[in-house]
């Protein structure tokens, strides 16, 4: 029996969020609107890869079955991934990638800030680093949201489409099941509702500056934490896991 099943599950969720959004961002490598932006998106991806590796390694230690970061990231199937549906949504358009990053980073920045106070030293240590990086991710994506929203008619329409499409995936960030609440009670996890007002504040202020209208409260998609994903996840894992599945001993 694992020492701490809840902590393992919690770390795996966070690790999967980071791994999947980094893979989505990496898809822009060589394709972004201009060279600087290409570098920016892959830099953000790199930070998320760093978080994922730390979290997978730690989860593997908690599990104690000898699974390392490679086993946990590259040798699991869709149903075992517990990432948010938001981070797996496709890059259909640059505006989609920017809006996805903005909605996620607006949550992750206060999340890591709060996690610095965790009683779990590993998570608190990672949070101290990740919070600084997330501040950059938020600033970068927020500036783009404003530039696109307050730009041309075309850019405004595209970022509006992205916002309206992605909005239904934002509710999942604030879900608090047994895993989260038991760890919140121990002072290990962050209660997502305790930072919701910060997320709302950031989103409202940036959308206002971007001349964008916040979508009305609507039905929220759910399922990612339980392994129920959109059809996109398998198509992300396929190229992401190809190398380690072909060469099972390959190291990150």
């Amino acid at each position, binding site marked *: 029996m694992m020492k701490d099943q809840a902590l393992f599950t919690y770390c795996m969720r966070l690790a999967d969020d980071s791994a999947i959004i980094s893979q989505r961002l990496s898809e822009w490598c060589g394709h972004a609107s201009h060279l*600087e*932006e290409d*570098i*920016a998106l892959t*830099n*953000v991806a*790199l*930070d*998320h*890869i*760093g*978080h994922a*590796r*730390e979290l997978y390694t730690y989860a593997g230690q908690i599990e104690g079955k000898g699974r390392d970061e490679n086993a946990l990231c590259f040798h699991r199937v869709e149903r075992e991934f517990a990432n948010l549906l938001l981070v797996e949504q496709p890059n259909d358009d640059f505006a989609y990638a920017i809006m996805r990053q903005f909605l996620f980073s607006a949550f992750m920045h206060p999340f890591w800030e709060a996690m610095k106070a965790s009683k779990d*030293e590993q998570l*608190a*240590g*990672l949070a*101290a*680093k*990740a919070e*600084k*990086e997330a*501040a*950059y991710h*938020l*600033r*970068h994506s*927020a*500036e783009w949201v404003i530039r696109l929203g307050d730009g041309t008619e075309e850019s405004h329409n595209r970022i509006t489409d992205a916002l309206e499409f992605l909005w239904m995936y934002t509710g999942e960030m604030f879900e608090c099941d047994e895993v989260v609440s038991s760890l919140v009670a121990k002072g290990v996890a962050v209660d997502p509702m305790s930072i919701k007002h910060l997320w709302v504040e*950031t989103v409202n202020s*940036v959308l206002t500056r971007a001349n964008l209208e916040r979508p009305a409260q609507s039905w929220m998609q759910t399922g990612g934490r339980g392994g129920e994903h959109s059809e996109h996840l398998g198509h992300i894992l396929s190229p992401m896991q190809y190398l380690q599945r072909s060469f099972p001993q390959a190291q990150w």
Partner: protein
Amino acid sequence: MAIAAKNLTNPLDQKAWDAVCDLPDPEVPVLTIEDLGVLRSVHVQEDGAVTVTITPTYTGCPAMSMFAFDIEAALLSAGFKKVDVKTVLNPAWTTDWLSEKAREKLKAYGIAPPNGKASRRALFGEEQVCCPKCNSANTSRISEFGSTACKALYRCNDCSEPFDYFKCI
């Protein structure tokens, strides 16, 4: 020295520290791992095995495996038999650990050193960054992200020089 990483209590620790402290950063070769504050501690155990602790500037920094490799090679060639390089995240690396000397070296190399203290957290604050060539403060940001995770891209509006800025975190 601006960082408090060094805590060497015996001559063997000192010897091991000296063997690795001048290893350069592969991306910013004017800075050593000691200048950067990436090198946190060196300890030689009774059986002669060396434990070196390093910390990344950014969690995903791809230079970390290169640092570990270089450290191991340097210690083996200095006569140590067994080397263990550990990576820690806590305390979190900050540009505040860069010494004055390191900042001058960066500037001479053409990279604007981090500006001020790392506590600034505004969503839309503009940092005032000076051109490392002509010292003008009339510069503009080209991109928040540069050629490596630790740098941003700027341009001098006076002398037209594009340059890297070592981000303040």
